[in-house]
């Protein structure tokens, strides 16, 4: 059980961390000063949440395991984030759609985890959900603005939805660890919030004059450590300092 809990914390943390890293790549490159600041602020909140998950994971592991080892010193197959969050920034519509699809999921997930029988997970969720609620408001507002904006913003946002939505399915496919831990009242069985997710997502997309694609879900196994080539590029930058100067501290 302890080993499973450790892996579960890694999965929770990795989703936020890889997305936070993607957002941090936009620092100084946002389409406007306000959105630049917003995206990096969201990144900072997410990194804070990651620290909470990884500090707890390090405590469980014991020995000389630290939050930094966990974040930086794993191989690609040992990262358990979903494929959605590793998708490249390409254009602003993609950045916002990726954020919206994730925020909506994360909001429902944290709402469940607030009731986790594991007190630390419940405390982290209760802390994080306040921030995630704010992120979700930001990303859904931008979905509406872009979708119902100009002809060009609409076309780009619909393209982002078409490309990214097929990755959403993975979020709701419970891994063996999620199944085992949700039976124990610790984790969320993501299948239980799927209907609510689809309903909430549909509402925002309709207001944004966007439609959900009927393309089949993409086969994705990020939760099992199987990634697209995107993650390799992320990790080579993310881990550079620790690999080049082992044990360096900021």
């Amino acid at each position, binding site marked *: 059980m302890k080993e499973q809990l450790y892996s579960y914390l890694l999965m929770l943390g990795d989703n936020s961390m890889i997305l936070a890293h993607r957002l941090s790549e936009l620092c100084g490159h946002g389409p406007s000063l306000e959105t630049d600041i917003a995206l990096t602020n969201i990144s900072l909140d997410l990194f804070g949440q990651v620290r909470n998950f990884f500090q707890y994971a390090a405590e469980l592991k014991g020995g000389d395991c630290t939050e930094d080892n966990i974040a930086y010193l794993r191989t690609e197959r040992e990262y358990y984030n979903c494929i959605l969050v590793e998708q490249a920034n390409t254009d602003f519509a993609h950045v916002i759609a990726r954020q919206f699809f994730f925020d909506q999921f994360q909001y429902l997930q944290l709402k469940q985890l607030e009731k986790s029988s594991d007190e630390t997970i419940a405390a982290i969720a*209760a802390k994080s959900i306040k*921030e995630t609620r*704010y992120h979700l408001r930001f990303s859904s507002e931008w979905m509406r603005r872009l979708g119902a904006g100009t002809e060009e913003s609409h076309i780009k946002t619909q393209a982002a939805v078409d490309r990214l939505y097929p990755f959403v399915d993975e979020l709701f496919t419970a891994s063996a660890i999620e199944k085992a831990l949700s039976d124990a009242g610790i984790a969320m069985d993501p299948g239980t919030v799927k209907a609510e997710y689809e309903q909430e997502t549909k509402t925002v997309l309709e207001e944004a004059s966007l439609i959900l694609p009927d393309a089949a879900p993409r086969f994705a196994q990020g939760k099992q450590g199987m990634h697209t080539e995107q993650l390799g590029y992320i990790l080579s930058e993310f881990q550079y300092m620790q690999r080049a100067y082992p044990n360096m501290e900021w």
Partner: protein
Amino acid sequence: MVREALQINNPEVQRALESVCDPEVPVLSIFDLGVVRKVDVLEKHVQIDLTPTYSGCPAMDTIAMDIMTALAEIGYTAKIKHVLSPAWTTDWISEEGRKKLEAYGIAAPRNQQVDKRILIGGASELECTNCGSTNTQLVSEFGSTACKALFRCLDCLEPFDYFKCLK
């Protein structure tokens, strides 16, 4: 949720802690901000429970370091524990703290309903911290630090920060 005032039975420690400020909003002491949850003094050692404002707020590390330094100066060692639960909310900013924020030019948090209306483009009820006009407009949900949103006044045309409501 309103918090009761913290009792510290050691005036010297109390004074030292009161001197520690939020590095990003230096008019607020850590008590004004409401992040000090518990203080236990055992002879020359102080045990403190702190609660973070935002999960990733870099000010928290600075605050912890400043506390250690302030206590070391009066000959105390300190141990700081970060507690997440119950999670901090902007309601924990003291009345005194809210006044200091406004005087400093940052609009104090209102409530979630007001935030929600403003942030989704509804009419603003925020008074400009410069001229008092409510003819104000949200510029960005995110400001210079994790805790702030950016507004502008349409009358005096000055920008101002709003300490956003977190509940």
